[in-house]
């Protein structure tokens, strides 16, 4: 007999394997070897979280109670996948184009990035999903209990509540570990998705194994099982047309709107072609899942004693025949179904709660705006983790207080009907440009209220919120308000009744308010982008050209996306505009793009609000609205062609302008250079000549002549240093430099540089912060030259950092095949307009007496890094002055 302890051990082992799978997949994806992860199979299998414990255990129970009706639950999604996969394709396309993070984000973004709608859908999803999570906890605890009660070794029946609590806690841990690892650009969770694909295989194999055992092991073959079905009460089942149609519709709607389904269908999708494969492969999966439901149900009814819970036949039938191994497999199948659903649902809900409730509150509390201090990423991650915990806690509490008695299928249908309320706003949003925010809000709230009143609240039973008296006579005796017979329509099945009224009222009010209300410009813009997503993606823009500083945007983006991602994005955009460095022009297109990237982390509405605080509100121009009004395909094609051409022209013009500017600059630079050299040479010479003449005349006090000789000496040294620097620079610039590459360690090079600056300079009171672990990098390059660059940067920080307590942070990081060493001080930094100039020869931002050099240091650094195959750049948006030295990690080819 399988003991309870064995069961626990098996469970723990299984979860450990899932951890391993998730971990390995995450690692592969991070290393960029996720080829097969991006294939259609993992995607298709991940869709199987549709089949929760409700389908795994509940379908058999459903069949035992209501005959073939269970098929509707599989029929809805199949119809969507096979017949309406173009809806899916459009959803996925919009999701990718707009960086949609959840179903709430989709609705909110479509209707003018309205956070009100985000909040409504989020609340609806939480309320609709909580019972479902409770259902999963219940099924796992029930299945534990089955094994426990079968045990004859006399161990005690485990406390069901404790089991549920352990399961909820473990799931929360798993979800937090793999679901909130980072704020991925598009909210993709490779580890979780892969683990879910594995679970999908386990549950399918488990159910098929039980089915095959029942058909061939117990009944003796397909024809015998057919005879058993004929003889069983299920054969007497009469089809109820309205219920059949309603349930099929409901499961189809839920397939599109369930937060967890939206998560795997749209958010985790990496390639639209995956949808094509899934459109036949997923129905096949559903078919296999449902194949043996009926045989298991009839055999269970036939063999097991009267009153056995049919929801557990999948477990109890094998146990009845002493097939412990099979029962164990079946248990793991059920366990997989429950856990995968809970994990994905918790991730989806936590994203919604954090993006649509926590972040907006936080933004409005912090009035100083989005360009604030503090790490937003950290905040978002914390709020997601807390939300995951909260969602599972809610599920657990629901499980505790609902008593867990109701049949599994009933809870499932209630939940489906709740989230299906999103359907009118969702579908109209992507197909009808007239759909408006007001319509969506009113429809959603009304549908939600009707659902709660007619289905959700009565589900708590007579002792719950709605008393039997209200159920029978309506509130305050108003018969037309009876929860299960609204407007006096009697005789309908309660579920059908609730679906009918909630959908009719929801859709009706939605259309009515959409027709009478006037959408805002942003709403129109978004509507056009969603409805015509295939025609013009990203053509219309919601931002006007403004005087926003790229550096402000970078500071904000770094706090949300993380330093390297934000810098990479800005650098790429600057490069696309033909500029060097990290600060592109803040064109409307760029702001639009940045907003989409940020939306991938914090949701559309929040990203829009944050950018709005910096850019200073949005103004949608007449031109943009006219672009939206251009209905005909031809116009769109024509204008997009023109746009391409004008883009190209703009690019060429910009390049020409830049080339011209460069030439003019070169000529001016040559003059300036000569004049500068003249100045730098003549100035010390003036002092030398004047004082030598004074000394030549003689007759001075010895102290005076010593002082004047000293001046002559110092100025001579200054001249020498200048000539050295000039020669160095000219050698570097002409490429006649001999590099002496040698093996060394970055930490040692930095040590030498720091030692050189602290011993030479008198006023170097700057505190240097370093990280020895990250500095432990083997180098093969000309380390003397590299040290020269470091010395220059450290000395500059010591000289120019104007903080009260000057500090310099030396941060080392690796990215792809490049090593980056950042020198960041805490002074007031370098103004944007000077950031390019500082690398030019003889450029000094302050007066020369303080600088004491000729302004060649950074120019030499730039040349050296160029020779070493790297570069040195100014890194804006770090608080103080920041320089980034980039080096290739691959060894320098010797002798080059």
């Amino acid at each position, binding site marked *: 007999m399988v003991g309870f302890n064995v069961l626990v051990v098996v469970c723990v082992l299984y979860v450990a394997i899932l951890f391993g799978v998730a971990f390995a997949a995450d690692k592969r994806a991070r290393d960029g070897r996720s080829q097969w992860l991006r294939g259609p199979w993992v995607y298709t299998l991940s869709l199987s979280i549709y089949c929760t414990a409700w389908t795994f255990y509940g379908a058999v129970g459903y069949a035992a109670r209501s005959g073939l009706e269970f098929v509707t639950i599989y029929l809805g999604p199949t119809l969507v996948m096979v017949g309406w996969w173009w809806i899916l394709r459009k959803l996925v396309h919009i999701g990718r184009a707009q960086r949609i993070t959840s179903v709430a984000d989709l609705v909110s973004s479509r209707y003018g990035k309205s956070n009100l709608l985000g909040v409504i859908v989020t609340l609806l999803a939480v309320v609709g999903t909580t019972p479902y999570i409770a259902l999963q906890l219940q099924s796992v605890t029930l299945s534990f209990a089955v094994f426990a009660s079968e045990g004859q070794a006399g161990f005690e029946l485990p406390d069901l509540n404790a089991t549920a609590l352990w399961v909820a806690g473990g799931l929360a841990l798993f979800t937090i570990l793999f679901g909130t690892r980072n704020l991925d650009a598009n909210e993709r969770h490779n580890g979780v998705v892969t683990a879910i694909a594995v679970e999908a295989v386990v549950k399918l194999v488990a159910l098929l194994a039980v089915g095959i055992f029942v058909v061939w092991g117990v009944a003796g073959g397909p024809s015998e099982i057919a005879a058993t079905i004929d003889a069983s009460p299920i054969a007497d089942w009469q089809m109820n047309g309205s219920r059949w149609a309603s349930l099929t519709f409901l499961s189809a709607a839920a397939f599109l709107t369930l937060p967890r389904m939206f998560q795997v269908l749209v958010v985790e999708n990496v390639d639209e072609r995956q949808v094509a494969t899934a459109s036949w492969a997923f129905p096949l999966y559903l078919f296999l899942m449902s194949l043996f439901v009926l045989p298991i149900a009839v055999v269970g009814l036939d063999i097991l004693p009267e009153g056995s819970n049919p929801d557990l036949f999948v477990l109890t039938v094998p146990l009845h025949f002493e097939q412990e191994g099979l029962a164990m497999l079946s248990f793991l199948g059920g366990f997989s179904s429950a856990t995968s659903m809970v994990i994905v649902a918790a991730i989806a809900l936590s994203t919604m709660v954090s993006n649509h409730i926590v972040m907006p509150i936080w933004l409005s509390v912090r009035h100083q705006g989005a360009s604030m201090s503090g790490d937003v990423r950290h905040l978002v991650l914390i709020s997601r983790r807390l939300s995951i915990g909260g969602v599972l806690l809610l599920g657990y509490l629901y499980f505790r207080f609902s008593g867990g008695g109701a049949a599994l299928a009933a809870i499932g249908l209630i939940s489906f009907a709740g989230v299906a309320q999103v359907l009118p706003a969702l579908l109209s949003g992507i197909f009808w440009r007239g759909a408006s925010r007001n319509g969506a809000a009113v429809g959603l709230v009304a549908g939600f209220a009707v659902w709660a009143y007619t289905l959700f609240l009565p589900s708590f039973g007579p002792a719950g919120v709605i008393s039997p008296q209200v159920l029978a006579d309506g509130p305050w005796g108003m018969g037309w308000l009876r929860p299960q017979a609204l407007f006096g329509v009697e005789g309908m099945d309660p579920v059908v009744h609730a679906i009918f009224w909630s959908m009719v009222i929801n859709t009706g009010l939605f259309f009515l308010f959409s027709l009478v209300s006037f959408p805002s410009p942003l709403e129109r813009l978004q509507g056009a982008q969603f409805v015509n997503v295939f025609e013009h993606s990203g053509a219309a823009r919601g931002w006007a050209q403004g005087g926003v500083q790229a550096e402000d945007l970078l500071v904000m983006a770094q706090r949300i996306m993380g330093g390297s991602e934000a810098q990479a994005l800005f650098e790429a955009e600057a490069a696309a505009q033909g500029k060097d460095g990290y600060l592109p022009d803040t064109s409307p297109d760029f702001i639009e793009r940045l907003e989409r990237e940020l939306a991938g982390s914090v949701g559309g509405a929040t990203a829009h609000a944050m950018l709005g605080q910096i850019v200073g509100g949005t103004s949608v121009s007449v031109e943009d609205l006219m672009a939206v009004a251009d209905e005909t395909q031809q116009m769109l094609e024509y204008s997009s062609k023109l746009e391409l051409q004008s883009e190209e022209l703009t690019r060429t013009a910009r390049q020409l302008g830049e080339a011209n500017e460069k030439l003019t600059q070169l000529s001016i630079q040559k003059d300036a250079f000569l004049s500068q050299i003249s100045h730098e040479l003549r100035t010390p010479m003036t002092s*030398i000549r004047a004082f030598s003449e004074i000394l030549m005349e003689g007759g001075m006090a010895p102290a005076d002549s010593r002082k004047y000789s000293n001046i002559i000496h110092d100025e001579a040294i200054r001249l020498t240093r200048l000539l050295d620097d000039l020669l160095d620079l000219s050698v570097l610039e002409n490429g006649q430099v001999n590099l002496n590459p040698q093996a060394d360690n970055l930490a040692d090079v930095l040590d030498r540089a720091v030692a050189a600056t602290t011993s030479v300079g008198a006023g170097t009171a700057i505190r240097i912060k370093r990280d020895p672990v990250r500095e432990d990098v083997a180098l093969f390059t000309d380390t003397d030259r590299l040290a020269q660059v470091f010395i220059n940067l450290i000395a500059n920080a010591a000289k120019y950092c104007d903080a009260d307590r000057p500090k310099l942070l030396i941060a080392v990081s690796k990215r792809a095949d490049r090593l980056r060493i950042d020198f960041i001080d805490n002074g007031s930094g370098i103004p944007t307009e000077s950031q390019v100039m500082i690398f030019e020869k003889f450029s000094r931002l302050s007066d020369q007496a303080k600088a004491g050099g000729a302004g060649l240091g950074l120019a030499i650094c730039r040349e050296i890094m160029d020779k070493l195959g790297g570069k040195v750049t100014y890194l804006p948006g770090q608080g103080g002055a920041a320089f980034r030295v980039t080096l290739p990690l691959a060894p320098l080819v010797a002798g080059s």
Partner: protein
Amino acid sequence: MGKQVLVIEDEPNIVEAISFILARDGWSVGTHANGETATEAVLANVPDVLILDVMLPGRSGFDILQELRGDPATRTLPVLMLTARGQKKDRELADRLGVSRFMTKPFSNAEVLEAVRDLAGPTAS
């Protein structure tokens, strides 16, 4: 009491050299190193001769000269300009702005002394 010279120059060593030469000759020498506040310094106490460097922190000597020439109090003030750049167009610009004498660094002490005496001479007596 000797006549007043004001030296506007930011290189401390050059200031020291000029001050020494002129003081030894009996001049009373004032100095100023910042270009931005230079005109105020001149107008606060107009000297007999002004020695003005071209490359000053904050403001160029040319700008200062132009402003001084626009002010009645200093329209005829003798100004000796010193520059370390010494290009032809600098000299032309200085002439156009109404400089009294233009000299390129490095200079000989005797030349500077002579120029200052020369500039102060006619107006003083």
